[in-house]
């Protein structure tokens, strides 16, 4: 059964024909749209490495069938920076050593972007840790990750305040 979908990925409209409905968003991104930044860890919803935003909300791309996404807007790690200008969450991960091997990092960063947009964790480290619990890090860079998310939360809030002033 072939299926045609149209979705926006990192701002660009992509028309995709799937030759069968089994393709997950994760495999679509990595293997058909040449966007390998989104990582495959467990492929079963248990690690968060595949986290992307759909219509601004963070989800696990490995459990999302691409066929369900007709008309959706997807943001991946490749879509965060503006040219050489890093997104504040990306910059904060570098400043705070929020990674070691880096494999979980795209998922961590996308999850943090989603968490900050949700706006409920604020600057409480415990709420940030809880909010980021869907992203495992085998290198256990958790301390740096929490510091990075805290810092990015503050930077994004300051930027917003400056823009609305």
């Amino acid at each position, binding site marked *: 059964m072939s299926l045609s979908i149209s979705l926006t990925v990192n701002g660009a409209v992509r028309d995709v024909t799937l030759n069968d409905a089994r393709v997950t968003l994760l495999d679509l991104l990595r293997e058909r749209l040449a966007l390998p930044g989104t990582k495959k860890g467990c492929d079963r919803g248990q690690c968060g490495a595949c986290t992307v935003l759909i219509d601004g*909300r*963070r989800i696990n791309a490995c459990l999302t069938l691409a066929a369900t996404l007709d008309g959706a807007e997807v943001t991946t790690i490749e879509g965060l920076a503006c040219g050489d200008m890093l997104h504040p969450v990306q910059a904060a991960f570098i400043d705070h050593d929020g990674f070691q091997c880096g494999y979980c990092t795209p998922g961590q960063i996308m999850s943090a972007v*989603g968490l900050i947009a949700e706006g409920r964790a604020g600057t409480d480290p415990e709420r940030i840790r809880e909010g980021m619990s869907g992203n495992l890090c085998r290198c256990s860079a958790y301390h740096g990750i929490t510091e990075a998310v805290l810092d990015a939360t503050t930077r994004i809030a300051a930027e917003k305040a400056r823009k609305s002033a």
Partner: protein
Amino acid sequence: MNLFDYTRPASVEAAIAAWVPGAAWLGGGTNLVDLMKTGAMQPGKLIDVTRLPGLDRIETLPDGSTRIGAMVRNADLAHDAGFARAFPMVAEALLSGASGQLRNAATVGGNLMQRTRCAYFADPHSACNRRTPGAGCDARGGDTGGMAVLGWSPACIATNPSDFCVALAALEATVEVQGTGGKREIAFADFHRLPGDTPEIETALQPGELILALRLPAEAAQFAANSRYLKLRERTSYAFALVSAAAALRLDGGRIVAARLALGAVAAKPWRVASAEALLVGQAPEPALFARAAAEAVAGAAPSGENAHKIELARRIAVRALTAAAQGTPDRMPALPASVFGEPAHV
């Protein structure tokens, strides 16, 4: 994963008409797609119900009950301010389950229908009566640490993994469903089934019936000031319950005038014991009383393997949840929902 057809009908009527034997409704896919990857579920057709109109709303009905559409996402329900104020225990149960990402995808209907986490069930190379009737049960004599201690049968010792459903059972929700025979309502107590000789029949839903909504009666909101969901797990977040408890009290003049208590992850359905609740009513909320009620709640429990510890843990989590409920619902959702660690219940 097996090959399957995919369809996204535009109305409830069209969805019901699209159902054929072997088809499955697709909600957020967080359970179904996972089990299709292992091969434990092999539907020939997926009927995507997530965009059905009118089922993504939370509304108050004229009789004061709250109706939650089956397609409302778990995160949206837990964070709906009005809902969380009226049913803080349900919100806490939801937020103690899975992760931020999964809750954004998971639907109310899918949560009710999620399958057991028994590892042998998920693995098609293991014998499992629930997956293949009559095949046997490789869990028995296998890894039984997380298995049922109440209501199990020789055919199946698996538990229902949902946190949400434990709180819903305590608050006497009803489930609205529709099939080719029309609409009907199922009381939550009758929704999930104990295994008996037919573990493959997991719920009261008939083949081809679709969950449309969930309803919480007006009285359920009367427990808002004194209710908690507590959950023990192997790590503080992003883990299924080893045991859990939903406890809700209505206090008046220093006495308990109404009480609800349900245990989670101990049986194939949320475990609510009317006699334990009856012990509480009319009494002053005191430790000795909570200990008696908790003991009553696990009366009849028996290990189904190397899991006798779960009986004691269930008894203790029931005492903790009743104690926390009597202290009062926290003003703000705890930073670690349903955890016995971290900040005290009262903040």
